């Protein structure tokens, strides 16, 4: 997408009810200043937002390869999957028609697959026809698969304005499906840049600047994203719709259970009381955590939302190990808006669980997201990397260890040795470029530490939390305290 590039303009980064308006000059790109808008925002050159809510229903035969490929595409497209019907689910024709009617889809994706699946998928399409043909507005149907299968489905789907895309198992099929779903989300809003697109442009730019892979971990009110990019510009993205720390908070609890959120809170709280807070937050757009417990809940929700994103990414076959080993991790959204930088750092370290030496940075006042949006929309022909460099402030360098080690650290021309004990988690002071060599582990390299210094994380991977409150809460509190997040 390329919009006209004005010399001086504004870009709005939408929150749940408010928006942050950044003004910038485009030639070369430089952010000038920002203000928080409390009402509906109009008049900006571009706006960054989640787009419209598009309820997607998927119909397909039970084929693992097709499903994995489709999952990857839906994750990349930020699709809100309302229902996934498989031909072998054991339900009757009327039951399928009933659930499809209740789902009220906006977009139906039919995974046609091979000719051997045609009969099964045709049955699902007939259920769709019976259940949703009279829906207003009528949902649109997108069919992916080989030509013979898709042509068999045309009759059953005629009422839905059927559109045929290449097989989703192929790269071009995935790209086409992602593009189609994103077009639906954008609707007719001129100048809208999807938050996903802004984050992907940001991840690409960070990787280009670092000359190494980068990871952007974004948690907003109702969306959660993980975007990995290589220095060559290859992007792996998981955008979860409806999951977040705001209006998506109850969905986080719904997916993982209340205890999955509660386990990240470093203080005792009863489950019913926690659920009350989650529900109230979910129905209060841009609510602010004024008290410590509410803030702990927001941090816990951010942890868990990112954990879901990693889980979904792994299920869709995305290279999760590569994402975790990115040398640059950038935290954006509400997770970057926590009052203490150490709290954002802790979300990055505990939720991403980096497996290699990495610099963690956090966005401030949505500046990096705004630059990503300007880059994605093609509003600034040059100066994107420089603008990111201006707002690129590492918080800390994180060194993960699987076991005990003796670490040699060179920082500011001073060399010193540190002993890292297995299970420990602490910060040592370091600034600027830090060079590390660890005896006993393969960890070595250099990176940039920020104001929080060097984090030595020897808790192992995957990070395991004690099950019992009596053990878990003190352990969590100690981790929070050790980085200054409590």
């Amino acid at each position: 997408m390329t919009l006209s590039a004005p010399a001086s303009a504004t870009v709005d980064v939408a929150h749940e009810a408010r928006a942050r308006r950044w003004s910038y000059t485009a030639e070369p790109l430089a952010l000038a200043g920002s203000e928080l808008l409390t009402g509906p925002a109009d008049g900006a050159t571009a706006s960054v937002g989640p787009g419209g809510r598009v309820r997607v229903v998927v119909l397909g035969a039970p084929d693992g390869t097709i499903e994995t490929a489709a999952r990857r595409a839906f994750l990349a497209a930020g699709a809100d999957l309302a229902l996934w019907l498989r031909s072998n689910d054991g339900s009757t024709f009327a039951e399928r028609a009933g659930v499809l009617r209740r789902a009220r889809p906006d977009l139906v994706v039919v995974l046609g697959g091979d000719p051997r699946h045609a009969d099964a998928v045709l049955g699902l399409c007939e259920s769709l026809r019976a259940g949703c043909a009279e829906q207003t507005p009528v949902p649109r149907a997108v069919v992916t698969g080989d030509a013979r299968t898709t042509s068999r489905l045309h009759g059953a789907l005629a009422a839905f304005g059927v559109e045929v895309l290449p097989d989703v198992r192929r790269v071009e099929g995935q790209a086409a499906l992602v593009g189609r779903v994103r077009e639906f989300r954008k609707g007719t809003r001129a100048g809208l840049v999807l938050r996903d697109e802004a984050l992907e442009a940001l991840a690409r730019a960070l990787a280009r600047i670092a000359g190494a892979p980068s990871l952007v971990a974004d948690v907003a009110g109702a969306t959660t994203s993980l975007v990995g990019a290589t220095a060559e510009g290859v992007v792996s993205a998981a955008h979860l719709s409806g999951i977040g720390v705001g209006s998506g908070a109850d969905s986080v609890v719904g997916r993982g259970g209340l205890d999955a959120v509660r386990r990240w809170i470093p203080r005792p709280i009863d489950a019913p009381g926690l659920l009350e807070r989650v529900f109230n937050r979910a129905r209060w757009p841009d609510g602010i955590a004024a008290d410590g417990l509410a803030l702990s809940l927001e941090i816990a929700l951010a942890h868990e939302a990112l954990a879901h994103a990693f889980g979904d990414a792994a299920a869709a076959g995305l290279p999760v190990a590569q994402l975790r080993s990115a040398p640059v991790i950038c935290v954006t959204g509400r997770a970057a808006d926590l009052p203490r930088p150490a709290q954002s750092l802790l979300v990055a370290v505990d939720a991403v669980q980096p497996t290699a030496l990495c610099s963690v940075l956090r966005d401030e006042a949505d500046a990096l997201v705004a630059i990503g949006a300007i880059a994605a929309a093609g509003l600034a022909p040059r100066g994107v990397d420089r603008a990111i460099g201006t707002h690129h402030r590492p918080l800390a360098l994180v060194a993960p260890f699987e076991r005990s080690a003796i670490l040699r650290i060179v920082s500011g021309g001073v060399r010193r040795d540190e002993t890292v004990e297995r299970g420990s988690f602490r910060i040592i002071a370091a600034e600027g470029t830090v060079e590390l060599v660890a005896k006993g582990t393969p960890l070595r390299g250099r990176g940039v530490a920020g104001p929080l210094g060097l984090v030595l994380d020897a808790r192992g991977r995957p990070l395991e939390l004690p099950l019992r409150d009596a053990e878990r809460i003190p352990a969590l509190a100690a981790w929070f305290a050790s980085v200054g997040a409590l």
Partner: protein
Amino acid sequence: MGWRYALWTVDHPLPFGATERVGLGDPVHAGDIVASGSVLGAATSVPGARRLGIPAGDLAIARRVATGAEVERGTVLARTGRRFARSAVAPFDGRLVHVTADGDFLVAPVVDRWAVRATLDGQVTRSDTSVVTIEGTAWCLPGLAGYGPDAVGELTLAVDAPVDELAPTRVDVRLRGAILIGGARMAAEAITRAHACGAAGVVAGAAPAGGLRVVYGDDVTADGLPTRDDRPTVLCLIGFGTAPLPNEIFRPLVALAGSRAAIHTASARLFVFAAEDAITPGDPPAVLLADDHSGVRPLDAPAELAGVVRFPSEVETEALMTAAGPVPLANVLPFDAHR
């Protein structure tokens, strides 16, 4: 906005298998059956166009039974020819549920029946197999989230003050068919007791989220859970946990007690069928999210801007100074704010 007397529109989505429904323009009252249909078992495919030797597009000419019609075993679904007739017949008693694009008939046995009732007095403005829409005039109080099936009954006061919690001891079988007005909170025990005693529904400022999970299961969310099965009907007006009702909301509820009312859970609205001059509602005050998010309360006393304040969570933001201290401005919303 709070209470408003106006012309409202309510959609009643229909389950699959509708067989009867009201006609366009028909007058209906809340509680009337507007559509009924069958719950269907496993469908059997009966070859149609192929068996008759005609193109699928021509099947309409040969059909003898409309989609949705009840059929008996041996009923001719479609037939061609005279002397050398070819026909498709129903294999068992049931309904013709669907005709595929390839021209096959799907016949399914009837295993149960369902009915959808109106939640508004008015006229039918849309009626098809997927939805019946009714437009009518009533007093309406929009809520935050509705749970359970739609309900119709007599509005009945079950608390003494807007800050009271609905006590289970106030609920007994004499309240059968009533829509109970709770106060600031309705706990799971009161909700289930009301349902067991035959009360049509419960309306209050808030319900504990944990209690909603007890009643409706772990799938329940803050967006509500409209259902069709036999479960309690709950309408949360302001929030979750505890939420005292503002006087501007509670007093009209008291004045309207005894009137016929309906809860439409999908849109979380309470309709009360009373004369336009039955109440004179005022504008409700803004509502305020508790600092720890445990409840919502009305902002009863005047408050003024306090500039940027640093809160115990260390968040620094624009604040409003209330009698109880500063609160983040973002945590204060108009009563009718979209949320």
